[in-house]
């Protein structure tokens, strides 16, 4: 997939993943990797940025497999932001699809 496409939607996928369920970093990386092929290291800076911008909040939860894990939870601001991103994405892909299909028909 084109890296530029992936860059644009990565934030949306991360936000949507955390909206469905609170996740810790590694779990989130695996979840995102199922959708798009990304460098694992890039997810953490994105998580950090979204946390700094108060779209995520974090909490620690004990784990039976090792040290406590930091879970990410979507805040109210994050939900609003996700809704906006989703609307933008739908509009964008509808326009692009419409354009491409129009081109093919023509």
């Amino acid at each position, binding site marked *: 997939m084109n*890296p530029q496409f992936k*860059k644009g939607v990565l934030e949306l996928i991360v936000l949507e993943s955390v909206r469905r369920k609170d996740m810790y970093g590694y779990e989130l990386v695996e979840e995102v990797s199922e959708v798009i092929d*990304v*460098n*694992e*290291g*890039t997810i*953490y800076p994105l998580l950090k*940025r979204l946390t700094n911008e108060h779209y995520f909040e974090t909490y620690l939860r004990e784990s039976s497999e090792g040290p406590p*894990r930091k879970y990410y939870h979507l805040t109210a601001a994050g939900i609003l932001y996700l809704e906006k991103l989703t609307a933008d994405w739908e509009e964008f892909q509808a326009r692009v699809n419409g354009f491409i299909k129009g081109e093919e028909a023509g």
Partner: protein
Amino acid sequence: MAVDRNKEKFLNDLREYLSVLEEQEQEDILAEYAQHIDMKMQKGLSEEEAIRDFGSVKELAAEILAAYHVDSRHAMSVGRRGIWPAAIGRNAGSTGIQGPDRDRGGLSEAGGAGQSEEKVEEGLFQRMNGRLHKIFSNIVQAVRNGFGWGIKKCRWFADLCARPFRRKWGAGDEEELAGSTGNDVSGILVERDCGSEPAVQGYGSDADGSLPANRPEIRTEAKEKRTGIMGRFFRAMGRGTVKICKWMLDCSIFGMRLFWNMAWLLFSVLCAGVAMMALMGIGMTLILVCGGYPFGGIFILELGGMLCFGALAAGAFGMMIRKKAKKDDGKEEKSGKEVHYEQTA
């Protein structure tokens, strides 16, 4: 053992790149990456493989810093000098995603054999930047030589204008310089959203009481800027204007106070005169009353008038502003403070 060193090295390298961030933030980030590596190892990957998936440490650090709105080009001036290549910050937001379309190790090591097109372009820009800098430096030098005489004359004129205020300049400069070494030089590094916590250490606040290594340079530059000819000239003009305004304000205050005092003095003298006349009338009326004349009512009227105008005269006299009294108060306050300081010392 070699495997252990890899993880340790990765985390140490990352820590060095992130040294501009607060210690707590560094620990937070490193803990997440360490945990990620551990989890991958639990799934059967070797440590080396787990680390390799992160790609270049430099790129990774640049992305993390970009998440804090820190430009990695400036990070080199704060962290360990030399670890940041000059160009990495330009790609901070664009090199993150990696897939089959992208070479994972392409930008990993500066000066490595496999340079990408981006690096070639950057080199070109750097060379162009160097040439432009040289051209501008030559122009500036020529201008300086050509207008040296004019600059000297301007400096002489500025000195002449500033001579009356020179003694105050020195103190002012020092005060301004002392003020400038506080918080106002910090803005170059961080652009931060209002909700975020401060994350860059050593800038903006000197919580640990130590200045960063480049502060003296900033201080010197600030001083040089302030001691420019035009700067000095305009500052002299500004100080002169302020001084004239202050003098005019003092004159106005003095005139108003003089007018106020004269008005109340006049009123007080008039009231006192009426009170004195009433007192004389009381004396005369008292004699007549003692002589059997029925002037009891007039006597009471004069007595009331005397008391009333006497009180008005005293009140009007009290409304006058007495500078001397204020000075005395100030002296008392000052001496009181001195006593207090001595006691506390």
